[in-house]
């Protein structure tokens, strides 16, 4: 296993749940914290596609933003290419990171043209004009857009075309890691598969590594090499995609797979209960209120990550 591109060690990110100002400190009012990301350890190898699957409130987007250095952790570290990310060096670490966002209608500056948007990452590289336009040309064609699109404004583009422009912007500075935050969930089914195909092709040609964040398990299975399922701020299962999807070990992953309607089986089975509030989390394993195999130990202590064959599972069912 080569040196990982990015690694997180005991990563935590807590947000203040209420506005805390002068007033709160006077009354020493205990400020509740939202534990969005709570002690996450994962690695992304060069050229690998790691999928982060989870529902809303699982912390997958926050984790993605932490790794993309858009947020600084409350505790723990993000190590990018061997260097620990902190306030000072985050600016030049960002040279090797790019991101594609969920809402195609907000990821492109409405006033910019396709050319100005896509070439923005090269601004700091002080390349000659011809270099920039040649790169722009090649990148535009590799995302399947004719050169005629160069001077068009985002409002004249469809959802799918906009995401292609966003992908072009992400690959123009040939970064080492691209964080994809639900890139296709705002698109129609037919357009979604166009963009997914594009992402897979680019990965095979240019050997980026992707951190693919999604709630849609089917797309995760199609695009990723390894997958991590997240629940209430923690990774509950991490392993090769075929293994995790084929024979899921953690009860939540099993429930997740069974609750997704597909064209192969009509019957859908859903776990009981609701997603827990991230402010007052249940004791012990966070899934225990909804878990069919719950044991006493689950209600008291947190299982932490455990080895099971070549997977990591956070569940007391495994030693």
């Amino acid at each position, binding site marked *: 296993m080569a040196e990982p591109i990015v690694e997180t060690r005991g990563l935590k990110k807590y947000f203040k749940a209420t506005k805390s100002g002068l007033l709160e400190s006077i009354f020493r009012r205990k400020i509740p914290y939202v534990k969005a990301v709570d002690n996450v350890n994962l690695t992304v190898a060069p050229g690998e596609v790691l999928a982060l699957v989870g*529902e*809303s409130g699982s912390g997958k987007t926050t984790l993605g933003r932490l790794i993309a250095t858009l947020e600084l952790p409350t505790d723990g570290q993000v190590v990018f290419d061997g260097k620990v990310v902190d306030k000072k060096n985050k600016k030049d670490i960002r040279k090797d990171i790019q991101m594609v966002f969920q809402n195609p209608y907000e990821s492109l500056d409405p006033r910019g043209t396709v050319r100005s948007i896509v070439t923005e990452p090269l601004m700091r590289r002080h390349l000659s004009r011809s270099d920039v336009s040649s790169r722009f040309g090649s990148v535009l064609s590799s995302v399947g857009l004719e050169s005629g699109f160069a001077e068009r404004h985002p409002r004249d583009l*469809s*959802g*799918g*075309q906009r995401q292609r422009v966003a992908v072009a912007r992400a690959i123009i500075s040939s970064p080492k890691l691209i964080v994809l935050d639900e890139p296709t969930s705002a698109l*129609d*089914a*037919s*357009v*979604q*598969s*166009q963009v*997914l*195909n594009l992402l*897979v092709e680019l990965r095979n040609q240019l050997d980026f590594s992707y951190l693919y964040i999604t*709630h849609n*398990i*089917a*797309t995760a*299975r*199609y695009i990723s090499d390894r997958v991590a399922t997240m629940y209430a701020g923690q990774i509950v299962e991490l392993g090769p*995609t*075929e293994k995790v*999807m084929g024979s899921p070990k953690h009860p939540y992953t099993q*429930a*997740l*797979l*069974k*609750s*997704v*309607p*597909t*064209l*192969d089986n*009509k*019957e*859908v*089975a*859903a*776990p*009981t*209960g*609701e*997603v827990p509030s991230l402010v007052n989390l249940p004791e012990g394993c966070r899934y225990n209120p909804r878990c069919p195999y719950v044991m006493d130990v689950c209600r008291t202590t947190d299982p932490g990550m455990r080895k099971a064959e070549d997977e990591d599972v956070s569940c007391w069912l495994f030693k």
Partner: protein
Amino acid sequence: MATQQSTIPSVSIQDLTVSYSTVYGRVRALNSVSLDIQRGESISIVGESGCGKSTLGHSIVRLLAPNAKYDSGKIELEGKDVIKMKGHELSRMRGLDAFMIFQDPLNSLNPVKRVDIQLLEALRTRYKMEGKPFVEEEAYKEAEDKLTDVRMPDPEKIMTRYPHQLSGGQIQRVVISMGLLMRPKLLIADEPTSALDVTIQAQVLMLLRELQRTYRMSIIFITHDINVAYAVSDRMIVMYAGEVVESNPSEQLVRNALHPYAQALIKSVPRTTKKEGRLTAIAGSPPNMLHPPAGCRFHPRCPYVMDICKVKSPPPVKMEGGAVVRCFLHGGTDS
């Protein structure tokens, strides 16, 4: 509560055309759509954004936006034409004949009123319509029972809560129970689970299937996700650019869809069960509803396009097994 078995369909839509006037000009959202739904049948309407599925849902209960207009066609709900209804007749139809639930849980309940008041409000109108005296305790009890019917944990507490104190899943359940209180013959659901998490969506889908069986209600389930449509309905209607391109029982449609668009839609969906090679995507991008393509509206993106497709719009053709399709591959070239 068995609904009487009568021959007239629960809903019968004939050649419905609805258009919106926008700053750019008139956009025809529905182009002579015809659709019949039998009593107790659960159908789903599937299509990409902008195909008019939500407009179709809203037009049945006359909740279209101010800038929308019924250009032509008829919508018969329980034998009466909805488009011609006025005042009292209209408010009687909404609730007793049909009930509609919507997509965005954050806005589905009145944020300034408690849940019990909003449920009683529904009961008060039904009792008035049925001429029964409204007794507060009795109504309160009935409302609470309905909450248990929709698998709501500790309904007494939920009754006294305000909508902002409930989760998305709980709000949708309250809205569904509100619908059940009205005992409608038809339930229209416009993407009710799209804004919910996968596990919560599964709970709501299971609930809807169950309620459809126990209350023998006909359900129209509108969604963009073909998997959800398959899981929740007996028959699927596929719409494209304001037209119904295919109507087929779910099993048949999934195994061998007739219309090229329906086939492409099914092939383009990544499966969770196995890893496949390239996904077959549909070329081009969704049509511009301001200047829709001539003839069959799918022809610019259709792999089997023929000359006639570019000129004439294919008429609906009845196929065996109760399927209806609008495509020249399956006939209709003579009329």
